[in-house]
């Protein structure tokens, strides 16, 4: 006869295995259900007509999301142009220059920035950034540039915390070796530390891009949501996420399927970005 404790141990183990598998199950469900709703339209209308189609009029049978794909990339790259230099500088300052007390103060403050809900960013963008752009640069203010400014700030915590981790994990001996050769602190940083932390820093940029391309609420409040490819930084635009959020509440039939097709495209882009980021981070650890 098997002891009761042994039975209990075995039972616990299998329960824990089931728990651990739940994450995979959820991922699978998300994947399957978005694909199941999103793919039929690709077959019905045609991949080309959706991905490269210029016209989105789902109630009249036009499901082109090309302008939204371009817009999503534009806001993401714009956000990176603003967020990456600022974020990396902050990370360098925190890891190399800041004293222990400054670091203890600044790092949590930046992490708190990550906790502020995106609706609040969107709201402040509408109240402060949009009028600023309208008055000084022209246009309606609901524009590519406003969106990039707000998203650039929103991705800062991601970029700072991940590049900070990469910079801090550069071995002390590298710094000492460089200092011993008479290099100034800045020479050490940009000739030794940044190159050794390169893959981690790149991963932080890519994860920042992932955050920017997936951002929804702030974007629909600021971007203006027009259905064409923006030709200047002052033009309004609609992203993939915005398209879903704006229309999901009332869409039915093929219209709803079209929104899931938009979701499929978004999911594929995010998966590629995450894959690249994880690959980058893994290579860093392997080194």
């Amino acid at each position, binding site marked *: 006869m098997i002891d009761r*404790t042994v039975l209990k141990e075995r039972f*616990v183990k299998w*329960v*824990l295995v089931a*728990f*651990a*598998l*739940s*994450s*995979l199950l*959820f*991922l699978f469900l*998300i994947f399957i*259900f*978005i694909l199941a709703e999103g793919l039929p339209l690709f077959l019905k209308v045609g991949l080309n007509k959706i991905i490269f189609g210029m016209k989105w009029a789902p109630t009249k049978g036009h499901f082109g999301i090309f302008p939204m794909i371009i817009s999503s990339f534009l806001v993401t790259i714009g956000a990176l142009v603003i967020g990456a230099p*600022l974020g990396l*500088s*902050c990370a*360098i*300052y925190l890891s190399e*220059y800041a004293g222990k007390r400054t670091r203890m103060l*600044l790092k949590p403050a*930046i*992490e*708190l*920035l990550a*906790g*502020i*809900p*995106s*609706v*609040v*960013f969107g*709201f402040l963008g*509408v109240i*402060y950034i949009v009028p600023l752009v309208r008055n000084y640069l022209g246009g309606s203010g609901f524009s590519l540039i406003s969106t990039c400014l707000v998203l650039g700030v929103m991705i*800062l915590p991601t970029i*700072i915390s991940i590049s900070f981790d990469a910079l801090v994990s550069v071995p002390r001996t590298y710094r000492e070796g460089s200092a011993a050769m008479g290099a*100034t*602190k800045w*020479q050490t*940083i940009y000739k030794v530390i940044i190159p050794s932390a390169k893959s981690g820093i790149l991963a932080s940029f890519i994860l920042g891009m*992932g*955050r920017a391309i*997936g951002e*929804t*609420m702030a974007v*629909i*409040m600021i971007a203006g949501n027009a259905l064409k490819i923006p030709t200047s930084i002052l033009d309004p635009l609609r992203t993939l996420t915005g398209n*879903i*959020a704006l229309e*999901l*509440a009332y869409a039915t039939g093929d219209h709803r399927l079209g929104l899931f097709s938009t*979701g499929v495209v*978004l*999911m594929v882009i*995010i*998966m590629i*970005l*995450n894959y690249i980021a994880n690959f980058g981070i893994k290579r860093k650890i392997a080194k």
Partner: protein
Amino acid sequence: MRINPRFINRFVRMGLNVQAYFTVGILIIIVAIIFFKGFPHVNFAFIFSFPEDMGREGGIFPSIVGTIQLALLSILLATPLGLGTAVFLTEYTKESLFTKFIRFGVESLAGIPSILYGLFGFIFFVIKLKMGWSLLAGVLTMTIMILPTIIRTSEEAIRAVPRQLRIVSYSLSASKWETIKKVVIPAAIPGILTGIMLSIGRAVGETAAIIFTMGSSLRLPLSLMDSGRTMAVHFYILAREGISMEKAYGTAVVLVLSILLINILAYYIMNKAIARYS
């Protein structure tokens, strides 16, 4: 002409300094604006009364209750699942293909943007499982969203528990599960709590995934099948539809203040936890 490297060094240092404080400045400005504009509209009645006329008048009581219901119920579901996963990953297996798969699942879930959770929750819970826009659909969607955070923080906390504690427990003839239950998890509690607090913060601030699963009914959700709106959703609707700027600012204060407090508490607990074993 060659510029003196020491001059460059000083110049760069100053530049980096400015940028770091600029970033923190943004945080302070955001919080300051919300507080200065919003506090005049927050009072006892605002917090404890029901909204009238779509939120133009009255308070935000139902949305506060909705937020608390959503956050607590999701935590109640996600904590056992996440903690169980973390225990399995740290105590029951060595790194293998199987753990790699699970880690892949967790990482991927963490990377999915909230609007895709919204799409999924909408089609799966609201439509296919016929829950309709309801607290239940919101809670289930939120549970999946916060699961990766709970798993990661719990895993780190459990890994930080010194080996000696486990060895002593085994030497007293405790079984594996007894050791985990009575020694490892209690020792890792602060780290686990940090994950829980961060997850509550996330649930409180989430909008895109919630608005399509829990809906946006202004009534107080009294059962799991009732629709309701959280503070974040209420704030979004007030601001976007231009219903009332004063009420929007007022809601924003309560929303941001609760998230800041929750997150500060989370980091406080984390620092305590780090101090404990280092």
